[in-house]
């Protein structure tokens, strides 16, 4: 497996390639912390979700939360990764005020999940494969609050001990676009699996980004790690400005120091946080309070059997079953909520095979278009999946035309109501009564002999008659019937 080619950066001495590896920290969706029964709820009063274990009181012992283990295995399976049936918790020792134990319980040499891979779809139908190095479970730290007092810092331990999955990619990513696509897809998979809510604003998902630059095909350069970025667009921005910083230094004859840096989105630059010399010696060793984590093949199989359909599989199914374009299917599956909405629309259709693709068009073009315009998301859509199914059914069965359907959609969006009943009560039904349509056609032909002559000479002009008939029927005449009648009456 070789990494994809990325966008090269032009420097004074030629092109440069960026080499990127990501460490994503994803908060495990669980009610309780990794090693204590305390709640993981976000936004409580400081120190309101803290157990004796989280506060590292004397004599307290960690007990693994089985649900967090399941979530990690679930995630590993979702990333097509190797599940290690034996893994070990280690202590990562360092002093910090918001780290009550004086060590973080993590997994060092034997993580719960090993290698896997993810295929990214990029613009223009290109793909890139990114290797997953490992996934391990670890505890989150608390939070230091420096803004409450001029000369004291306060500590909030609510997050202390919350379970995180650290998902480490191989250095297979070659530009900012790929990095963003990787995190976007990873986030989507986690959300499909229900193993992380992916809420980057709340810090549920954040990334450390390792960046180095080299001449294309040349030896790897020295990397810098940019810590704790909590937005996908910042990840892209940070990579671009860090790569440019490194290129500038090298082209000026300097060398890159391996160090940890922070990204400042306001200034659009990264700055040094600590150098390699200041790096901690974490003195990792197996946590003697915890036995190695071991589980059976059957346990993994049971979790595997319960996995939901993931975006890649769902996309392939949408294309195969409903003839969706790869692009449209991609749009629908990108977010679990969109895909779920579309699936609910499908479930409500009278004839899925006939109208599945029509439904996709309506979800993407009419609904998403309207939601985007109003800055709303799918969960707050005024038109429900059931209402949209009814609208698509009405079009598919020929009760209303596509044009009328847009009016109907507007009514449902603003006023609500059952689309089928609305069509009845507001007389929006398409007229398929041939006698009625014929009467209108005859009237228009009789009233416009000059146009008839023109149309007979130049059949393309028959469109004028179609328009007139539709107008006089209030758009309700069946366009196909109108066409057929006009053709025979005009003899064209």
């Amino acid at each position, binding site marked *: 497996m070789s990494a994809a080619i990325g966008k090269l950066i032009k420097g004074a001495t030629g092109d440069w390639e960026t080499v990127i590896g990501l460490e994503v920290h994803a908060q495990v969706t669980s009610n309780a912390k990794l090693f204590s029964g305390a709640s993981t709820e976000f936004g409580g009063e400081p120190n309101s979700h803290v157990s004796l274990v989280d506060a590292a009181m004397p004599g*307290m012992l960690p007990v693994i939360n089985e649900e967090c283990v399941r979530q990690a295995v679930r995630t590993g399976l979702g990333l097509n990764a190797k599940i290690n049936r034996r893994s070990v918790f280690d202590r990562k020792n360092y002093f910090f005020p918001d780290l009550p134990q004086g060590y973080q319980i993590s997994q060092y040499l034997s993580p719960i999940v090993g290698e896997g891979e993810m295929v990214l779809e990029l613009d223009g139908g290109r793909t890139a494969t990114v290797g997953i190095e490992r996934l391990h479970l670890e505890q989150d730290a608390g939070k230091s609050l420096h803004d409450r007092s001029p000369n004291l810092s306060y*500590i909030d331990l609510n997050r202390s001990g919350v379970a995180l999955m650290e998902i480490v990619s191989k250095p297979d990513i070659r530009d900012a676009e790929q990095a963003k696509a990787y995190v976007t897809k990873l986030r989507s998979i986690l959300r499909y699996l229900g193993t992380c809510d992916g809420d980057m604003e709340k810090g549920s998902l954040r990334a450390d980004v390792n960046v180095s630059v080299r001449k294309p095909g040349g030896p790897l350069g020295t990397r810098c790690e940019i810590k704790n970025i909590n937005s996908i667009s910042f990840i892209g921005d940070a990579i671009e400005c860090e790569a440019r910083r490194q290129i500038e230094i090298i082209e000026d004859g300097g060398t890159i120091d391996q160090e940890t840096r922070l990204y400042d989105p306001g200034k659009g630059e990264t700055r040094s946080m600590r150098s390699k010399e200041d790096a901690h010696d974490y*003195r990792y*060793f197996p946590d003697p309070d*915890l036995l190695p984590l071991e589980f059976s093949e059957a346990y993994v199989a049971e979790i595997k059997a319960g996995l939901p359909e993931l975006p890649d599989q769902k996309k392939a199914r949408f294309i195969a079953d409903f003839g969706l374009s790869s692009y449209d299917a991609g749009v629908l599956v990108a977010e679990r909520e969109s895909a779920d909405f579309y699936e609910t629309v499908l479930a409500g259709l009278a004839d899925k095979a006939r109208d599945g693709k029509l439904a996709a068009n309506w979800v993407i073009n009419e609904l998403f278009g309207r939601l985007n315009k109003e800055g709303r998301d799918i969960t707050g859509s005024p038109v429900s999946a059931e209402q949209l199914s009814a609208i698509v059914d009405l079009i598919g069965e020929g009760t209303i035309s596509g044009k009328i359907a847009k009016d109907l959609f507007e009514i449902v969006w603003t006023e609500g109501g059952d689309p089928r009943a609305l069509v009845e009560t507001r007389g929006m039904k398409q007229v398929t009564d041939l006698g009625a349509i014929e009467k209108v056609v005859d009237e228009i032909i009789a009233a416009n002999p000059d146009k008839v002559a023109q149309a007979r000479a130049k059949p393309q002009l028959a469109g004028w008659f179609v328009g007139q008939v539709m107008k006089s029927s209030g758009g309700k005449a069946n366009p196909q019937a109108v066409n057929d009648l006009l053709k025979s009456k005009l003899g064209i």
Partner: protein
Amino acid sequence: MTDLTSLTLAEAREGLANKSFTSLELTDAHLGAIEAARALNAFVMETPDQARAMARAIDAKIGKGHGGPLAGIPLGIKDLFATRDVRTTACSKILGNFVPTYESTVTSQLWRDGAVMLGKLNNDEFAMGSSNETSCFGPVVNPWRREGSNTALVPGGSSGGSASAVAAMLCMGATATDTGGSIRQPAAFTGTVGIKPTYGRCSRWGIVAFASSLDQAGPIARTVRDSAILMRSMAGHDPKDTTSVDRAVPDYEAAIGKSVKGMKIGIPREYRLDGMPAEIEKLWSEGAAWLKAAGAELVDVSLPHTKYALPAYYIVAPAEASSNLARYDGVRYGLRVPGRSIGEQYENTRAEGFGAEVRRRVMIGTYVLSAGYYDAYYLRAQKVRTLIKRDFEDCFAKGVHAILTPATPSAAFGVGEKGADPVEMYLNDIFTVTVNMAGLPGIAVPAGRDAQALPLGLQLIGRPFDEETLFSLGEVIEQAAGRFTPARWW
């Protein structure tokens, strides 16, 4: 009525059940004894009000006929066990006046079974020591003295307060903990019985941690039977400690008096040290002879990696301790010595809060886990540990039921006599650390006296979770050697 404090736990249990006396009377007798024995410095916290309240409550229950297996028995608790609303310090200045809001699993099981708490017992700071001289509350004095001498002797450590209090009849039994010999060595130094059960037999929850993979709780008592009675209440699975083992707790007392006929007793040749005092040799042979006389078979066994046990122990235990003690940082509880920065606050707090021995072990532990040294020290010590464990497994696989060794290389020494050279102190644990490294049960039983009339103990090492055999064999030695009671001078 005889002095209630001189009864064994089993005798007191009978007296309470017969209503010959009440728990309150028994408790008061002990509270009086404690008050009169402050010169021993065994208790660091006396809880007479709580003791009397517990005694009254249990008396009411005994009256209704459901008191529990330890109903009304007054006990002392090593200060390493967290006791709810009662100061718990591990005898370290760094915990200051720390008062837990929780009760350790082992002590809550004792209270569940009706025992009464007299107070908290002195120990070496964070259980690091073999003489109880590292306690921030000062050394404990052994109730035993050399014949014709007033020199204060150490009770051993780290459970020195427990051993001293039990020997001096200040309590009927005590909780203790053992990481490298901290139950068995002080028991041997004070003529008491101490058992360290199999690793995982007792919950470690609520016990201040020293070295998590080695720490185990156990009792110190005046007889083998008393220790068996206490062991039953202390043992058991605890979901809050994942290293505790889910295995039924047997009626240990039933093992007392059981025939040891046909049991194979291993005599390990590697425990015969160069320059071992003749009286220790003699004690050992005597003990073996008693077991033989009781029908056991003696076999020479080899535990070839024994000589590496002590050095490996002094890598593993400090390594774990250096990490376990990181939480004492002055941020959340205990002592805080401010500084100009958080780093300085850590340094000031830990420099002032930890005593010299604790600081030494934290530094050793930090060193052996450091990048570049981990493989040479910690990893290698873990490999040695595996080999030590295998030595015992091989031995037991050959049908050996238990192994007999001396408990200590000497009798109790004087306060201040050792300590200039830490290694000299560490050598006290030479016969006991192997048992912790292998996670096995070991019992120390008084078996004789040295030339200065100080008690000496023998150690029996058992198969995993076979504490019962140790109680059976221990009682044979106890029967042959008799009981040892110090003359009261305090």
